[in-house]
Structure formats: structure tokens, C-alpha cells
């Protein structure tokens, strides 16, 4: 029927096919619009959520250094091993080598992972050494990864432990200067966006969201060498006398900087497992005690300030004791009629009390308050105690008489050291600083320079032969200082057989540079006097410190006459 050459037109079929194509095209176009425009945000979000990751860039916590730039606390990169429990348990890998590296058993490891199956991130072990981390990664267990973290190391160990303090595992300061200067030291980690593949490997770095900012370094006023020396000598003394503890503070008299601060017993900040909190305490700033005889120079200074006394004024201490109210004040023996300087040299309680009672009742309290007793030093050290000094103006006679030789108030070692500065600096009290001080420091004039010099001379006699502190002497240097032996206050009065041995002093007398206070808590041997227990520590530490600080000797009588060599040969004598 069909004629050749003439095409048959199926109109309906043509339209059907065309409209099908058209519908298909519209469908595709709609799909494109849907994907590109309408659902774009939703899809983009999910796509990103699957592949884009924001990762943290760790940043250094600031380093703590001593005054010469020696490291005292350093952060270094370590690895922490973490896992995604679901993926580890989902694989058929043998977990026993991993458990062995983590010091645990397979059962416990599996249990740990099963308990946390819903989480994506579980620490297996934090702060491992690089060698172990490499071994673990070499096993190639799915779902086990490394994270870089910082660990804090303290090269000086127990020598500076109390002072520096420590950080917790998350790098935040917990104790000591690590806590006090946490804001300064701490770092803020940065963030960046990366593209990761299905296995969690970083394929591409996309952009940086915030740059990591490392913490600032902190330069302390501590001298690590002197710190070590002080620690060694204090520890030796505490052990030799079977004491409960002790602390030592050394200040620079020109700047008020803390050159050294050590305590006993100490701890190793690098390994704090099973350590008692008691050991963390920095006794030099947190523990208060009655200063005893070491306070007498302030009584004498008050007397000189009042104008009623000179160093030569005679005081009758006979017969070695006297009654105030129903309280008897005693000397070790009858010193007879002595001058004010000898009251210091022999450490006469009777003399000090009589002087205090003859003054205006409030005068002594005022001097002590000006010298910083009863208020914290403002050093900013965490947990610093302020000590106690009665604010009352109505001192009983007994109260005043005993205050004159250091009972009825309490101080910290740091406070006492700061207060002794006024004798070393011609009456100026300087603010205490743990941070290296640049430039001149302004102090507060507490007593006049003249009276400070007079007390200094008296304190020097206390260290000379026949003085109570002769064992504090330092060869080639003139030193001044005062001993103290304090009965410890116990519930219901003062203990008969528990003492604190104290020594506070400075050197060289010509131009004082270093002030040091030593406190030894409950020496249990035959010896317990400050002059026997604490003074030798002063001598040893001061000898070393003066040499390390390059402070010229001011007492070389033997050398002056004998051997003084010329610096260079005169030019003519070379032939």
C-alpha cells in the first residue's frame, strides 16, 4: 500500500516523542535548579559536614626563664593517642599489640571502647613519647589517631617547684607562678579548615580561621644557680637537724626582686603521681609564724625614731628577768646594764621590752605596720598570707612588752625579708617582685636613713664574735643579721620543746645588696637556736650568692697589705 519515496508521517507519534523529550528536559532543568538554587544551602551544608573539618592548631604556652634566660618551665610537643571506638571495634585487627603499648589488657581496652561506643573521640593515652607514638601509628589500626599536645617540663625540678608551681594536663596553671601569671603565659590555639577524605586524612588545607598565638615568655628575677645553692643548703640543714620543714627567701635590696625562694619538703613537678597536696604549699609565702627575736631590730628602730634613744643609751636589764603584770620576761642570763646596741647583739628580751614600754604605746605598732607587717606583700603569689598584726591601739602592757621581742604577731618569711630591706636600703621599703625588674624602683621611706644605718651597725655586731649570729659570718664580706629562736605556739600556750630557728640578715654591710631570711621548722636535735641551725645556712648561701652575683668584697684586711697585683705590666718594663 505504501508508496515508495513518500515518507509516512505519524503526527501523533512525533508529538509524543517530542513531548517526552521536552518533559525529560524540563525535569532535568528543574532538578538542576533544585540542586543549584533551592536546596543548595542544605546540600552544601551536608557536603561540608562530611568532608570539611575545622582542626585546632596547637600553640606553645610561654616559657618561664630565670634572670639569665635559663629555662625553668618549657612546653614541648608530645603526642596523645585517641580513637573512634566504633571504627576500632568494627575492624578485625588484633588489638593485643596496641593494648601492650598502652600498658593495659585487650579486655580492658575493648571494655573502655565499648563503654564509649557512641563517641567519635576518646583518648587512649595522653602525653606519650614520640617513639611510642610512632610504633602505635605503624600498626595502622583503623580509627586510631594521634593528636599533638604540649607537655610542660621543669628542668630545675624540685629546686624551684614551690615557686614555679605547675600546670594541669590541659596546660592551665594550677599553682605558684604558673597560676599567678597564667593569663600572660597561656596560649590560644588557632583554627583552620581542612578537607578530609573518607579515612580522615587531610587532603587539602582550605583556609585559616584564626592563627594560633603562643603565650608570652616570662623572665623571672630568680637566679637558678643561687636557687640551687639555697635549696641544697636548706635541705642539708633540714635533714641534719631532722626538722619538719624550712624556707628561705633572698631579695635584691636594689630592686626588691626575689633572687631565690626555696622550701622544704619539696616535690618533683615533672612527676606528681601520688603526691600529697601539703607538699605543694610554698611555705615562704603561705605559712605564718611569730618572728621572735628577729623582730627586735624594729623595736630598736622605733626607739631611735622616737628621739629618746641613741645606740649608746644604757638600759638596765638586771637581774635578767622582770615582771609585767603577772607575766615574767626572761633573758638567757643576766646581761647587767647594757647599751641599746648590746640589746641587739646579745638579743636581750628584757632590754627590748623595757625599751618598748618606755615608748608611746602606738609607736611600735606604727613602725611595724609601715614595714609591711599584717598586710600581704602584694607580690601576687597565689595563696599569699598577710600575717597578723593587731589593729588595736590599746595594747596591754604585756602585749606591748612581748611584741617588742616578736610575739603576738605573725609574719611570712617573705614579709620578714621585705621588712629587713629597710635596714639594708637606708630606710626604704621596696615592693617585692618575682619578675625581672628593669629601671629604678621607688620605695617608701619607713625610717630615716641615719637610723637605718645605726641599726645596720648594731646588726653587724650580732654577727661578730660573741654575737648570737656569729656562725652567719661570710669570709671577706661584712654581714649583718639577727637570729631568732621561737617557741612554737600550740593550743593552750607556747610549746616548751618545739621551736622555730630563724635568721634574717644582709650583706655586704658597706653597700647591702642581698637580704636573706631563713626559717627552719622544729629542729629536733640537740641544737635548736637560730644561731646554731639557721645562721650557718645563711653563711653558706650568702658566700655562694655574693660570688655568683659578682658583688665585690668589702672586708679584705689580710689581702690589702699582702698581695695586690697591678692589672697590667707598665709598658716600659716589658723588656
Amino acid at each position: 500500500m505504501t508508496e515508495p519515496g513518500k515518507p509516512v508521517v505519524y503526527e501523533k507519534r512525533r508529538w509524543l516523542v517530542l513531548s517526552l523529550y521536552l518533559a525529560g528536559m524540563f525535569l532535568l532543568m528543574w532538578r538542576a535548579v533544585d540542586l543549584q538554587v533551592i536546596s543548595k544551602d542544605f546540600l552544601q551544608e551536608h557536603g561540608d559536614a562530611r568532608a570539611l573539618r575545622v582542626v585546632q592548631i596547637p600553640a606553645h604556652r610561654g616559657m618561664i626563664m630565670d634572670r639569665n634566660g635559663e629555662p625553668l618551665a618549657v612546653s614541648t610537643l608530645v603526642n596523645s593517642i585517641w580513637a573512634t571506638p566504633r571504627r576500632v571495634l568494627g575492624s578485625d585487627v588484633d588489638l593485643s599489640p596496641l593494648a601492650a603499648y598502652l600498658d593495659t589488657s585487650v579486655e580492658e581496652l575493648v571494655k573502655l571502647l565499648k563503654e564509649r561506643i557512641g563517641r567519635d573521640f576518646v583518648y587512649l593515652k595522653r602525653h606519650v613519647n614520640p617513639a611510642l607514638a610512632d610504633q602505635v601509628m605503624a600498626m595502622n589500626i583503623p580509627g586510631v589517631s594521634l593528636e599533638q599536645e604540649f607537655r610542660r617540663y621543669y628542668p630545675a625540678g624540685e629546686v624551684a617547684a614551690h615557686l614555679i608551681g605547675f600546670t594541669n594536663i590541659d596546660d592551665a596553671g594550677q599553682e605558684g607562678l604558673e597560676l599567678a601569671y597564667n593569663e600572660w603565659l597561656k596560649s590560644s590555639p588557632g583554627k583552620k579548615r581542612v578537607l578530609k577524605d573518607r579515612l580522615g586524612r587531610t587532603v587539602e588545607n582550605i583556609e585559616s580561621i584564626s592563627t594560633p598565638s603562643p603565650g608570652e615568655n616570662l623572665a623571672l628575677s630568680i637566679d637558678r644557680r643561687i636557687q640551687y645553692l639555697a635549696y641544697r643548703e636548706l635541705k642539708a640543714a633540714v635533714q641534719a637537724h631532722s626538722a619538719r620543714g624550712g624556707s628561705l627567701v633572698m631579695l635584691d635590696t636594689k630592686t626588691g626582686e626575689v633572687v631565690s625562694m626555696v622550701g622544704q619538703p619539696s616535690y618533683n613537678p615533672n612527676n606528681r603521681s601520688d603526691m600529697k597536696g601539703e607538699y605543694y604549699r610554698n611555705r615562704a609565702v603561705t605559712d605564718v609564724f611569730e618572728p621572735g627575736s628577729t623582730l627586735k631590730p624594729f623595736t630598736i628602730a622605733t626607739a631611735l625614731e622616737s628621739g629618746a634613744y641613741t645606740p649608746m643609751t644604757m638600759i638596765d636589764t638586771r637581774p635578767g628577768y622582770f615582771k609585767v603584770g603577772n607575766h615574767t620576761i626572761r633573758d638567757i642570763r643576766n646581761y647587767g646594764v647594757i647599751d641599746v646596741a648590746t640589746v641587739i647583739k646579745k638579743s636581750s628580751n628584757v632590754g627590748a621590752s623595757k625599751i618598748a614600754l618606755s615608748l608611746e604605746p602606738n609607736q611600735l605598732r606604727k613602725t611595724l605596720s609601715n614595714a609591711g607587717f599584717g598586710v600581704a606583700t602584694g607580690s601576687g603569689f597565689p595563696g599569699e598570707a598577710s600575717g597578723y598584726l593587731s589593729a588595736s591601739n590599746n595594747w596591754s602592757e604585756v602585749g606591748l612588752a612581748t611584741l617588742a621581742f616578736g610575739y603576738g604577731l605573725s609574719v611570712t618569711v617573705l614579709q620578714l625579708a621585705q621588712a629587713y630591706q629597710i635596714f639594708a636600703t637606708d630606710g626604704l621599703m621596696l615592693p617585692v617582685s618575682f619578675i625581672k625588674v628593669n629601671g629604678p624602683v621607688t620605695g617608701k621611706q619607713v625610717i630615716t636613713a641615719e637610723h637605718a644605718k645605726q641599726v645596720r651597725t648594731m646588726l653587724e655586731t650580732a654577727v661578730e664574735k660573741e654575737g648570737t649570729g656569729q656562725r652567719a659570718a661570710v669570709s671577706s664580706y661584712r654581714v649583718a643579721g639577727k637570729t631568732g629562736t621561737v617557741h612554737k605556739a600550740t593550743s593552750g600556750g607556747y610549746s616548751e620543746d618545739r621551736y622555730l630557728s630563724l635568721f634574717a640578715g644582709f650583706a655586704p654591710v658597706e653597700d647591702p645588696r642581698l637580704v636573706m631570711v631563713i626559717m627552719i621548722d622544729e629542729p629536733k636535735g640537740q641544737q635548736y637556736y637560730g644561731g646554731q641551725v639557721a645562721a650557718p645556712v645563711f653563711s653558706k648561701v650568702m658566700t655562694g650568692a655574693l660570688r655568683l652575683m659578682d658583688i665585690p668584697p668589702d672586708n679584705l684586711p689580710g689581702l690589702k697589705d699582702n698581695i695586690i697585683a697591678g692589672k697590667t705590666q707598665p709598658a716600659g718594663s716589658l723588656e
Partner: protein
Amino acid sequence: MKNVIFWLLFISIFISALEVVISRHDARKLFVEIQMLEKTRDNLNEEWTRLLLEQSTWATDVRIEAIARNELGMKLPVDSVLVIEK
């Protein structure tokens, strides 16, 4: 005249579109580079702190003192042998 402006604008749109692509690419390349440099820096820093710790461990006062006294036989000079240079 209008035509010229049209074509100028057309071409500049085209060029700027290309520029966007190119600078995107450059930015990525630079970012990768800075990442690498930072990584190098961090590694060097890490090595430096490790060396610093190592040095300060070798140079602890305890060790120096022990070596000076025991191995090298050093001691503090007494006053009688001191010579002062003026």
C-alpha cells in the same frame, strides 16, 4: 559607540572572571605553602625546645658541681691564695 562600550565591558567581565579563578588558585597555593613553612617552623621550634631541655639537663648545677669537684678536682680558692687586681 555604544557597541564599543558593550564589548569592552563584556571582555572585562570575562577577564575578571578568569582573574577570580586564578587568584583563588594562587591563594590556595600560598596557603599550602604557608602551612608547610609553619610546619617546618613548628618542627624546628620543637627540636629547639627539646635541645634546650637536653642542654639544661646536662647543665644542671648538681651535675656540674659533681663533675667539678669529683672528676676535675676543683675547689673554691681560700682567701690566702687570692690575688686582687686593682
